């Protein structure tokens, strides 16, 4: 269990939550880009291990394609109109995926200094917490009076 926790969170653990050192600072990075050769394996390594030094145009096109497909999916769900209570959670989930993809890969946060991630994540946490409280207060505030 402790090993699993370490694997997921410890910076040297190479887990999903591992925030790698600035990969561009690494000498002789493992490979230059996720596309090329065993591309599927390289994509998997990119997602699970991070540490790609210089992702190439192929990878960026792939992320762009992903963003376009998710947007199409969102619009298709909108036209479907039959999801009831699941509609909003699904849409929020899809937009979160797009958000994370842009921040992690286009903004290079996944491969950049950890302090940048901490600053951005802290802002997101503070912002979302405050505005969630605001919404809760608006929703239930009248009942407190």
């Amino acid at each position, binding site marked *: 269990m402790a090993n699993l926790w370490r694997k997921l969170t410890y910076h040297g653990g*190479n887990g999903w939550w591992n925030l790698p050192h600035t990969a561009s600072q690494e000498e002789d990075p493992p490979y230059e880009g996720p596309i090329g050769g065993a591309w599927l394996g390289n994509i998997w390594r990119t997602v699970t291990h991070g540490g790609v030094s210089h992702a190439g145009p192929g990878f960026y096109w792939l992320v762009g394609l992903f963003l376009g497909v998710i947007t199409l999916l969102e619009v298709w769900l909108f036209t479907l109109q039959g999801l009831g209570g699941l509609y909003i959670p699904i849409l929020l989930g899809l937009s979160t995926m797009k958000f994370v993809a842009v921040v992690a890969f286009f903004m290079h946060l996944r491969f950049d200094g950890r302090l940048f991630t901490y600053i951005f994540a802290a802002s997101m946490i503070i912002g979302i917490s405050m505005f969630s409280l605001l919404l809760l207060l608006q929703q239930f505030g009248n009942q407190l009076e």
Partner: protein
Amino acid sequence: MATNVTQAPPAEKYAPTENHARVVDFEDTSTGLNSRKLLMWTFLGSDVMFFGAFIATYLVYRGRSLNGPYPSEILNIPVTSVSTFVLLMSSLAMVLGLYYVREGEKNKATLWILGVVLLGGVFIAFQVVEFRIFVIEGLTPKVNIFGTTFFILTGIHGAHVTIGVIWMAFLAHGSHTGRLRADNALDLEIAGLYWHFVDIVWIVIFTVIYLISANDGPPPGAELLHG
């Protein structure tokens, strides 16, 4: 503050570790990170809260307009989906422009940065046309609470995009004239962070305002006010 990039960091500070090879580029600052980039990330952190406040305000007042036009009567999802796609692709163009600047491929870099300018301009054009149609159909910032929150939020986002387009146009010119090169690609990277941020804000706006609110009509009882 000195931000010299060197190729030979002190061995004791950046010694090889179990999982990481020796560091070959680092910033000679107290954080080891570039100060300008840190400034941009800090600004983006504050902008998260700035936009968050307007998005939260929109949600607080969502569905409370007592008179029309209501979102269900006026929002055009297919058109906005196209403009959303355009903005997403501008982010792709941005990251490709940065890649080619770093690779020293001037022509490709200029082309992709111009692509960002073009796609950003198209997005703004979509927004201007959308605003114009809304005003013609009777939705203004003053007419109801939906109009107020909608125009403020999307208008501020549009202002951000406009600033980004102007910034990118200067950088495209710099790339064309050779002033933007691989050794100062950080200029473009910082502008890119701003541009991608504008993109992720739109991802949230598109979901919250357009997709989730598109079926919002008058609140219960609103018809009583109008006889």
